[in-house]
């Protein structure tokens, strides 16, 4: 069992990496977006290995499904096939990006090397049960009721904002 999950993890991890490198590397925006889909799917698989079924499903539905469709739609709408148009010229920007990425990488490696003893949360549920939609839903409307309600206001605001900014005939002069 251990070996099976290790092999699966290695495989999915490699896919995640191929996906993210491909996203940055490929010149064609559509290919880039498709690599990102690969990345999202592989990440969903890793969530499954961690026994978080709900997050895995949400990952696939929301990111790989809805958001990526939106991405591809926008790319095709803007007709960004021309690779020259997207070429970056700012070397300073690139250098800064590499620096920042390097710092984050070192940081992650450093943190991975730490031994952290976390206090165990008192729960009677097994890891598999925690990942169930039913239990996540119960947490949302009990312990996390307040943030849940605030999110509803946040979403309403976002909807209002999207309509305001997308509405036509906004100005009587134009």
């Amino acid at each position: 069992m251990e070996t099976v999950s290790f092999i699966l993890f290695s495989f999915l991890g490699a896919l995640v990496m191929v996906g993210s490198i491909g996203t940055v590397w490929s010149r064609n925006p559509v290919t880039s977006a498709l690599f990102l889909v690969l990345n999202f799917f592989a990440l969903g698989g890793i969530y499954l290995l961690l026994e978080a079924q709900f997050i895995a499903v949400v990952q696939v539905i929301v990111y790989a499904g809805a958001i990526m469709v939106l991405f591809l739609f926008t790319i095709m709408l803007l007709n960004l096939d021309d690779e020259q148009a997207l070429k970056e010229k700012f070397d300073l920007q690139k250098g800064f990006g590499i620096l920042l990425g390097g710092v984050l990488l070192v940081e992650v490696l450093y943190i991975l090397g730490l031994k952290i003893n976390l206090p165990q949360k008192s729960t009677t549920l097994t890891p598999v049960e925690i990942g169930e939609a039913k239990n996540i839903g119960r947490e949302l409307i009990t312990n996390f009721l307040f943030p849940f309600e605030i999110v509803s206001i946040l979403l309403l605001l976002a909807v209002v904002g999207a309509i305001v900014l997308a509405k036509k005939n906004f100005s009587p002069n134009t």
Partner: protein
Amino acid sequence: MPNNLPEIIEQVKLSLGAFVPEISLSALFLLVITLDMVLNEKRVVIPMVSLVGFVITGFFTWQQLDMPNQEYFLRMHVVDPFAVFFKFLFLGAGALAVLITMDSEELGEKNVANIGEYYAVLIAMVLGMFLMASASDMLMMFLALELVSISSYILTGYLKHQIKSSEASLKYIIYGAVSSGLMVYGMSLIYGLTGQTNIYEIAKFISANEVDEVTLTLAALLVMGGFGYKIGAVPFHFWSPDVYEGAPTPVTAFLSVGSKAAGFAMLIRFFKVAIPAEPTGELAFDWVNFFALIALVSMLLGNFAAIWQSNVKRMLAYSSIAHAGYLLLGVLVADDLGTQAVMFYLAAYTVMTVGAFYVVILIANKIGSDDVNDYRGLGKRMPLTAAALTVFLVSLTGLPPTVGFIGKYMIFTALLGKGTVFLTLAIIGVLTSAVSLYYYFKIPLNMYLRESEDGAETPMESSAFANALAAFLMILTIGFGLFFTPLANFAKNSVIMLVMN
């Protein structure tokens, strides 16, 4: 956290009583959206409804003054004098923003067909600020910050037909998304280190256990990225000149006072509570020196970059970066005196900055420009407006007898007697204030001592209402400068923050 259902229901019921101001604001938000859909004539009714709503919310907030300091909603939301002070500040800034919007040609009938949603989004932003001041859990901090950020993006891009406004909004979104991302990453590291999201529990864990200092420092730096973006301090300031210039001026005024104050409220609570000084006097993460550096760079860059600006809104943007530096000086002292000074200064800053932007609006209504070179000869043509602007600029510089002077005085005195580093910072603060005199006074210089190019001298006074509001803000600026004791006492009594129990 309690696990059984009846206990949770009991707690939520109890918490609702401490949430009345926010409920009132949410109701107002929904009411304004509804009114916007059913009314035909919105230009007067909706601002009036918003103002009445703010007054009612103010009444509920006032009732919170006597409430016990406590955490509510399963330890997500705090009510204490510190939060209540900031809530009053946000309501005042919000009400002023509504008032100055009513007079703005930029957002007037000619340019914007539908203004109803503008007020709705503004109210949502005030609600987000309320939550920022009260958040005691990293999850709530993030959500409240996003509520404020998203409303800011919408308001900044409200003038859709103007490329500048849309550009500012887009830049704001990109910078905002990056800083929120950094902040959430930092928060996730803190959660990973301590296993807690509640700031009081984090503090408890850090003082009781060994945590890795390098990781904690990195996490705190990343969190600071999110806060620094809200308060507009260097090096997270890149968005502010463009956004201040491109946004409709009433929005700029509200962003520069409201957003900044909310950022400071959250920053002070987070760093004072979650990463407190240990009994030995050592900080788990030495944020004092880090803040000293940010404050120093902000004061220098803000004041010196402002010298070269000829657009008044841009100049005020750089000046607001410098003010973030002064305010950070008060935070890094990390005692009650410093916090009190910050709170006083934020209140003072609200009055004088909204005043300055309001006058910029009035002038732009008449001459259609924000450029300082077009202000020539305005001293004769708009005497009251020009006088008011001069008073606000004197106050922003920090000269007596204005409220800005008292604010700066309080911050600098809080730094005295704490050591050479603090003394040096105070001296640099005073010196950079002297630099700010140079660029602030370019405006009165143009208004009073230079003739306009076409030699026009016809008076162009604004409406009686506009004059009254400008005069009112001017009187507040001088009045609080002379009789500052009530405001200072209010700030002093409001320093009380719920600390670790």
